[in-house]
């Protein structure tokens, strides 16, 4: 016997989410049926609102309700530095430390021909445009991940930006805070030795 159409559709919809297979989707679908009517309406509204009300900021590429985003509009922030990250999630991670007070730029990916991402496919052109139109930016901090692709992207951006006389910096590699040296993996340790600093 087949599931009635509404529930079959719901299962199919849940399965479109990452990390959710047939069994989990079925469990979620049946749970949804048992849910309070108001809660379900709330849930559906949240889904639609998230899609409808969120945009990418036309300046930095971060997700936002208003365009330009709150960070780009905040004049109290340091307008002379831009921190470049791979994903919008990374902006939230940086904001949590409450120490960085400059601006951001979200690339939405890294250069990786294998995944079909070339220089035109990520948000680099808008970064360059931003730097060209705004003399006030003196430093670009590149905070892409420490993967070969993240490194390549960092090097690529630095090559385009540096000739214009803008300072380009990269996040440090090394030991995580509060960790024991004995538990660090060999390459992290090696990078930490390589990037040591004079005291």
């Amino acid at each position, binding site marked *: 016997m087949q599931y009635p159409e509404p529930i079959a559709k719901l299962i199919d919809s849940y399965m479109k989410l990452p990390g959710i297979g047939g069994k989990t989707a079925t469990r979620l679908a049946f749970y949804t049926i048992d849910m309070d009517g108001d809660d379900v309406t709330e849930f559906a509204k949240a889904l639609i609102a998230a899609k409808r009300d969120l945009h990418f900021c036309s300046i930095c590429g971060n997700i936002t309700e208003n365009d330009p985003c709150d960070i780009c509009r905040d004049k109290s922030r340091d307008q002379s530095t831009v921190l470049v990250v791979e994903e919008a999630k990374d902006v939230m991670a940086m904001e949590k430390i409450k120490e960085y007070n400059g601006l951001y730029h979200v690339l939405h990916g890294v250069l990786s021909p294998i995944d079909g991402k070339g220089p035109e496919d990520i948000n680099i052109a808008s970064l360059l445009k931003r730097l060209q139109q705004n003399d006030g930016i003196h430093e670009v901090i590149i905070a892409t991940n420490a993967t*070969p692709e993240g490194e*390549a992207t960092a090097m690529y951006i630095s090559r385009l930006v540096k000739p214009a006389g803008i300072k380009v910096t990269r996040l440090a590699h090394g030991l995580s805070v509060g960790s024991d040296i004995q538990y660090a*993996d060999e*390459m992290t340790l090696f990078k930490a030795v390589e990037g040591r600093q004079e005291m």
Partner: protein
Amino acid sequence: MYLENLTLHNFRNYADLDVTFDRGVNVLLGQNAQGKTNLLEAIYVLALTRSHRTANDRELIRWQHQTALLKGRLHRATGSVPLELTLGKRGKRAKVNHLEQAKLSQYVGQLNVIVFAPEDLSIVKGAPSIRRRFMDMEFGQMSPKYLYNLSQYRAILKQRNLYLRQLSRHQVKDKVYLGVLSDQLAAFGAEIIHKRLELLGQLEQWAQGVHSEITQQQEQLTFHYVTQVPTEDQTSVDHLYETLQKLYAQQEAKEIFQGTTLIGPHRDDLQFSVNGKNVQTFGSQGQQRTTALSVKLAEIDLMKAETGEYPVLLLDDVLSELDADRQTHLLTAIQDKVQTFLTTPSLDGVARQLINAPKVFNVNHGILHEEEPH
């Protein structure tokens, strides 16, 4: 180091096996398809968590069973530790001294092994890829940094080859990104070439000693690392990096035209010469075998020099491939130094006389019987 004992549960054709080994030579005697090589494989898997015969771990688990268990007690100069490895549907779990290891890379390197199988004789006359694989396997066991550089190099090489192909088809135009990939490749490539040159230099010294002994000082073996990058004895990593960068810049048009990376350690080769002549092209069968044997024996000594202990040697059916003279050299070289496991359909001739009190096991359908000492 040596393996004191081994317990297998549902590994290949072994349902339950519990066996104690000799610290010298252990001979596995038996007809074909009884499980001789499976036992060597078990020791290899216990050491490196993967097989040298298959990439599919499912094949290692006994037919119609879910998990395989391998346990062994490893004796080292500093004491003995139990090793345990479980292979299952959900992956592998490794324990050292009863403590589970979060990363398999922390487990690998506890037990060092060297395999010598008939295929290894083709290291001299086979394709360059066999020699590159040989270098990567051996040097990777000795240096975690080499292993890391190699994996990064391979990842970047894949991206760069694809990008070159896109450039050659005019799907993309950006040469700046190509320059970035070239620099990254040059950085890791330089590290790899540098480490290869360093370790090959050491391996060569050990191999020369062995080789000259086997040939009664008649022949001199030399290694030559074949690469497009001009190298001298004391080439630094930085110098290699700059040279590679220059080569990539010079060859750019050609690489784009062909749509693939033409320069780097993935294209290099290792050449063996005897008395100045290339063994691959001018050497006799015998010379090629002697060279392969010298290189393998040198590996044992290099491993000892790099890690501080002799590895465990696995000889898979190689005695039959070597003549009496070479068998003698092989067996005297390992005698009383290296714990050795050798598989053979029959033990007679030189081998029987030479091996000092071997422990002989008859392998029959996944069951081992220890032979009474003569």
